[in-house]
């Protein structure tokens, strides 16, 4: 996000007149509403906001936002967005991608947009499937996923989007899911972050991978299976009866029982969003033995790419004039007399 004049809008101002073409019941509807609800709260200006996407179900997103929008080609949205940002750093850019678009065909660009730290919000809708091409397994599908291209189950190990992002050098990693009421808070934190902010959003593909996240996303028992991280707050879940502590011997995280709310006694960690070591552990936390870590997992800004490019320009042009006629006659010249 850049310093901008806050303007007053309502959710309606962010809706286009285009018919939304996702399948009825698709998790994308909830994400769309969450974004449209969040932007007025940020005081964002539709004229200054650009949604840029690749290809896939998620990437239709820009058509439904009453902002500037660019639906690009498969996997390349980070590269297009980098060019947009360098050409006009004042624009507020939201990148929309999916697990196939962002981690398979566009994995390389995802690596580099994070590494360079181009200031934008990157929403990766992870539904663990290729929806728009009718249900093939994706790079985040779990082993054994049956799909048209893997009739008896996939054999390759899935990528972990948040671990990928952190490994690529991301300075902000957040996680949420489509119907979560906390998603706007994660989006707001991402928007406040100066630099590339990576948000994995679990999204329910009701046609090809229905309810694949129900283990933690279903309302029933959610308390026990979701660890919502908050900066400065202890890592507690299950109504405060369990927490996450450091296993000093094995250098990993462990679940501890909390009695009578005395989490300090059992060493529950207070979440520090700038702790990169803990962030690495959080993104790798296996769901099952552990709850799903959600919220802002990591947030520790560094100078952005576009600010570096701007500084480079100042250095490179210091004391140099832009005189085209002189430039053309650079170097050793000679004159032919008339």
């Amino acid at each position, binding site marked *: 996000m850049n310093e901008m004049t806050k303007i007053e809008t309502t959710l309606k101002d962010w809706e286009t007149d285009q018919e939304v073409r996702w399948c009825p019941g698709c998790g994308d509807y909830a994400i769309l509403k969450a974004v449209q609800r969040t932007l007025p709260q940020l005081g964002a200006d539709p004229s200054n906001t650009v949604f840029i996407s690749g290809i896939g179900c998620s990437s239709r997103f820009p*058509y439904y936002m009453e902002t500037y929008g660019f*639906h690009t080609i498969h996997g390349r949205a*980070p590269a297009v967005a*980098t*060019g947009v940002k*360098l050409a006009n750093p004042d624009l507020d850019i939201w990148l929309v991608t999916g697990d196939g678009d962002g981690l398979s065909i566009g994995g*390389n660009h995802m690596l580099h947009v994070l590494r360079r730290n181009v200031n934008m919000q990157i929403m990766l809708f992870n539904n663990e499937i290729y929806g728009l091409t009718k249900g093939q397994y994706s790079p985040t599908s779990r082993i054994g996923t049956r799909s048209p291209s893997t009739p008896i189950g996939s054999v390759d190990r899935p990528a972990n989007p948040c671990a990928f992002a952190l490994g690529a050098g991301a300075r902000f990693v957040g996680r949420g899911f489509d119907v979560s009421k906390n998603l706007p808070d994660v989006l707001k934190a991402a928007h406040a972050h100066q630099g590339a902010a990576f948000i994995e959003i679990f999204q329910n593909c009701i046609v090809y991978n229905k309810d694949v996240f129900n283990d933690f996303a279903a309302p029933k028992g959610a308390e026990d299976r979701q660890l919502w991280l908050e900066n400065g707050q202890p890592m507690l879940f299950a109504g405060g009866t369990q927490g996450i502590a450091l296993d000093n011997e094995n250098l990993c995280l462990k679940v501890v029982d909390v009695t009578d709310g005395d989490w300090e006694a059992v060493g529950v960690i207070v979440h520090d969003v700038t702790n990169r070591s803990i962030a690495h552990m959080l993104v790798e936390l296996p769901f099952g033995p552990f709850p799903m870590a959600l919220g802002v997992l990591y947030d520790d800004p560094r100078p952005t790419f576009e600010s570096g490019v701007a500084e480079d320009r100042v250095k490179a042009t210091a004391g140099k004039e832009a005189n085209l006629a002189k430039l053309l006659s650079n170097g050793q010249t*000679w004159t032919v007399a008339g």
Partner: protein
Amino acid sequence: MATQAADTPHDPALSQQPDAVVVRFAGDSGDGMQLTGGQFTLSTALAGNDLATFPDFPAEIRAPQGTLFGVSAFQINFGSREINTAGDAPDVLVAMNPAALKTNLSALKPGGLIIADTGEFSKRNLDKAHYDANPLEDGSLAKYDLLAFDISALTIEAVKPFGLGNKDALRCKNMWTLGLALWMFDRPRKPIHDWLREKFAKKPELADANIAALDAGHAYGETAELSGPLKQVHMPAMPAEPGLYRTITGAEAVSLGLVAGAQLAGLPMFFGGYPITPASAILHHLARLKQYDVTTFQAEDEIAAICAAIGASYAGSLGVTSSSGPGIALKTEAMGLAIMTELPLVIVNSQRGGPSTGLPTKTEQSDLYQAVYGRNGDAPLPVIAARSPEDAFDCAIEACRIAVEYMTPVMLLTDGYIANAAEPWKVPDPASYAPFPAKFLTEKNDGEHLLPYKRDNKGARPWIKPGTPGLMHRIGGIEKQLNTGHLDYSPANHQAMTDARKDKVLGVSVPDQDVCLGAPGGKLAVVGWGSTFGPIHRAVHVAREKGLDVSHIHVRHIWPLPGNLGELLKSYDKVLVPEMNTGQFKTVLRDQYLVDAQPITKTSGQPFYVHELEAAIEEALA
């Protein structure tokens, strides 16, 4: 038939003051031959001769020393008359080692002069060059003039006072050789002295050593003249149009033309590139020109380079990307996006030998199909081809103009030869080019409504920068609805939009085709495009001097083609199309005009020789 005369002096004896001379410097890739050639070129230009050069070097940065594939050569043709090519056959071959002699001897003109460094003709180096006996001693070079002496030892002797180690001392050999060449052609040493002092400003002892080597080589010339085949030649200046001149390579000219083009459009330039031979030089040049509102971005790959340029164009800059064949192939899908979203974009393709990795450092014109046809869907874009380093400047400006005025990607074709070759350039006055300021939409263009795909009389849609208050809209690669730009797959709409994109590109205003040498109509037209201009022009010139009815037509606008080209071609009995590919432009001409265009093809990684084309002309008219 004259097989040797062509674009080289008709008289092999240098001492008889020819009107043009071809010199080739050849050595190991670590010997600094490109540097020697570059400085000799500069001194030639300063002497007022017209010139053309041909740097020919291996793909390996430092190939194993002394090997045949590690030879690096630099050829220059200069004269007191107009020079069109780097010359067919050298009059002088400087061979710094046996491998350089072996790989370059066949090109040398009979009676030509060989200057060889005996210090490098050791048993070991002879073995590496697969010589059984020393060619300097076994009489096998009898049909040439031979000047063989120990340049290595003379260089070491000359730089002795400066306390350099043997290795550093030997690195001054190229300057010693350059000094001798300067003497041979009666050139002042001062510009080279100045250049060396600047180059080694931080190591004055190296500057002094190199200057001493240069001076020693120069002094040696006078001595050698007394006893051997070496003669001093004075090449008078070519009568040229009055004005200020400099030398320029194609890569420099493209870079400067892009800067000028962006300024004429009143736009900041965004250049996205990825390292690739021989296109990287453009990225390097532009990276130093940030004060001209240029942003350069070295992307993670070719695709990101073009995508970032498209993003920058979308945001209101002039997006430019550059590559060579294999990299252009990777950019193909993104070109389609720029065509669909109708954004301005300049794509520079410095062609090299293909397919695949092909011949990275050798030249070819084999990406014409790729440029004109090589995309999925009906995806037309304008294509312009530069004919020479100096022409590349104007072509780059023209590419920018078309991109901005028609809201379209434009491809500019050069090739490895144009990119690396240097020639004198009459420095143009930037004020003499008509500006073509870009216009951005700032208000709704249909009453209450915004129509992002409403076309102007050129068929171009409006350019709308994100950030403009109230003009929010969406674009993308999915078929657009006429005017509104909304998603629309309906049959009639796709037909209408396909037609609109095609008509827009076919409607790009292109100057009528002229005949650059000869007459409209006649027995034979030789039609060329790109860097074959030089050899074709010279060959047609020579043929016409012999009284043959042949004309040269050079096509700059490959797509769309000039409106009168079909009629013009039909006014000749025969049409020959020489190309450094297997006949790609010939196919386009046949398709467009149903003319019986006959190909002359060459895919050796080397430019055409003038005599090859002379022979083809004579055969066609026989």
